[in-house]
Each structure stands twice: as structure tokens, then as C-alpha cells.
């Protein structure tokens, strides 16, 4: 049979064991969360999708510009012909005005198409970047990943928290389907 002192000691022991166990469980499951930042412009510029879409945009833009340049040349040639004829051929003058109008309309359409395509591609890039950076944060246990846009949004951060390189590698591996 246990005496009072023995019982008191056992109670203290049970409490200690319970507290230690509770702390170990908390420590195991608390999963210390990290914070980091990325230089947004660097990640964006080095993102594979951005590079691929930039090439696609330049191909489309060049094709549109080629059509516009061809129209411009046509207008110039008719203009030179009218100058040589000293404006006597009214049919040529009508043609010149028609071609010039077509040129201006095409120039406007090209500008709209360029803007629309750039806007579409920007949305696609940001959609994928958001997803992959978010996934990086979850997989690597980050509480926050802040974006340093160079506009004063992060006034100071220790370079040791700069995870730009790691995030850039990760987003590109995800984009290429290798992760």
C-alpha cells in the first residue's frame, strides 16, 4: 500500500509525464511556419511560360506588322504615281484615299489586337505563376511569401529570407511538367 508521500510523488510524476507528452505532440504537429520573399520581376522574367508566350506574341506582332507595312508601301506607291501625274488621274486619287483609309483602319486594328493578345498572355502567366508560387508555399511550409515589387512594398528584408532562386526553379519545373 502506498503512503501519502508515495501517492503525492506519483501524482507529480503523472502530471509531468502528461505535460511532457502534450508538449511533444504540440511540437510535432505545430510545424514551424516560415516567411520568405521573392523579387517578383525576376521570377516573372525567368518564368518559362512568359518566355514562350513572348515568342508567340512577337511572331503574331511581326505578321500583323508585315501586313501593315505592305499596305503602307501600296499607299506610298500610289501617292508617288499621283505626284508624277500631277493629280490628273482622279481614279488614282480615289484609290489612294481608299488605300490610305484601309491602312489607318488596319493600324488601329493591329494596335487593338496587340493589346488584347498581351493582356490575354499576361493573365495566363499570372494565373500559372500564382498557382505554382502558392503550391511552393504549401509544399515548403511557408506562412507567407511576400512579393518585392521594388515599389517600397517591402522596406527591408534580410537576404537570408530571399527565396527568389528557389521559387524560380520550382515554378519552371512545374511549368515544364517535371514536378
Amino acid at each position, binding site marked *: 500500500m502506498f503512503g501519502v508521500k508515495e501517492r503525492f510523488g506519483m501524482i507529480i510524476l503523472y502530471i509531468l509525464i502528461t505535460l511532457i507528452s502534450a508538449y511533444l505532440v504540440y511540437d510535432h504537429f505545430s510545424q514551424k511556419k516560415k516567411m520568405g520573399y521573392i523579387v517578383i520581376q525576376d521570377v516573372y522574367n525567368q518564368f518559362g511560360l512568359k518566355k514562350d508566350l513572348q515568342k508567340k506574341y512577337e511572331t503574331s506582332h511581326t505578321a500583323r506588322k508585315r501586313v501593315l507595312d505592305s499596305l503602307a508601301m501600296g499607299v506610298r506607291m500610289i501617292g508617288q504615281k499621283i505626284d508624277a501625274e500631277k493629280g490628273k488621274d482622279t481614279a488614282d486619287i480615289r484609290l489612294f484615299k481608299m488605300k490610305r483609309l484601309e491602312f489607318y483602319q488596319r493600324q488601329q486594328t493591329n494596335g487593338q489586337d496587340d493589346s488584347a493578345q498581351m493582356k*490575354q498572355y499576361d493573365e495566363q502567366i499570372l*494565373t*500559372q505563376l500564382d*498557382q505554382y508560387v502558392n503550391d511552393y508555399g504549401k509544399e515548403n511550409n511557408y506562412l507567407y511569401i511576400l512579393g518585392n515589387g521594388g515599389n517600397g512594398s517591402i522596406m527591408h528584408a534580410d537576404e537570408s529570407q530571399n527565396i527568389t532562386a528557389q521559387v524560380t526553379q520550382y515554378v519552371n519545373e512545374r511549368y*515544364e*511538367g517535371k514536378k
Partner: protein
Amino acid sequence: MTSEEGTGTRRDNVVPDKLAPSQYVSWIEDKNNGMEKEKKIDDIVFSVQYRPVPYVICEEEKKNEISDSLAKRRSAELSGMQYMNLKIEVPQGELLKYGLTKNAQYEDRVNYFSFGMQKDIQLVEAGDTLPCLLFHYERVYDIAPYGVFLLAFPKGKDAEGDKTLIFSDNEFNKGIIKFHFEGKDIKKLPQLETI
């Protein structure tokens, strides 16, 4: 550790030699074996299933015993191409109606999925870009919130090498989406057990 021959599951890089048709299908569809790749971008899940010729035969026959002569005959007929499925899954509703704001857009999407999307899919292998030669959209209407596109590409210079399927998604505006399959996984596929 040894492979679980009953389920055909690969553990610790041990690939079973031969599998019965139902086990073969399960093995190919097991994401851990590298023949299915998935990407979730924003609200939409895109996934690609690589379909080796024996897998295509199993799907066609839907039996757990396939004769050797039939397997050889169909393999010879199918061997000139490589096969994949692309699946696009939305959070809810019908894929064809997802995100649409006008009725006219529905017909445009049906046409795109049925015909136009084929040109937005390529397979890159050994530096070559292979076009999608066979394309079929399996409509499930509103039974399930996804659509499956059956794809076939010509065989390239290195049929068992690394390959990347590239899909340019302009319909849901997620951009260029790539799915990469490792040649080392394709080279180590189990064989189909026949009778």
C-alpha cells in the same frame, strides 16, 4: 521489399514483369508509376494519361483474359502511333458550359472541342514537335464535370524517350500547359499477360 503481385503496384522501383489485364490497367492508371500526370491551375484540373498499346487493347477488350494471337494482331495494327488521353475537369457543372456568359459561346465551345482543339495539342519528343493526328472528344454532357479527349500522335525518333505533351489552353485562358513523361518510366513498363 517485393512488389505486390496481387495488385500489380510498384513499390521501391520494382516493376512487375507481367500483369493480367485488370492489374495492367490499374498499374498504368496509378499516378505513382508515372503514366498519368496532373496539373491544377486555378479552378481547373488538367490531366494526361499515357496509354501504351497493351493498355489500349485492354480497354478495347474489357476482359481479364486476352488471347496471345489477338494481342499480337492488335499490337501490330496500333503500333504505328502513340496514344494519350487529355482530361479537363471543372469544379462543377458541365465542362461545355463552364464559365460561359452567353448562349452563343456554347456552340463555339462545342465546335472548338470537337474540331479546333486538335491544332492546340502537340507532342515534343527528341527535339521534334509531333502533331496530334487523331483527335476525338468524348462528351459526357452533365453526367460528370469533365471532358476526355482521345489523342494519337505519330511515333517519333525515340518512342521510349522523354516526351512532353503541350496543350495551349485558350478556351479557359490558363496558357500553355505541359505534361512531361520520363523515358525511364516508359522503358520499364510491365508486359501484358496473355493466354
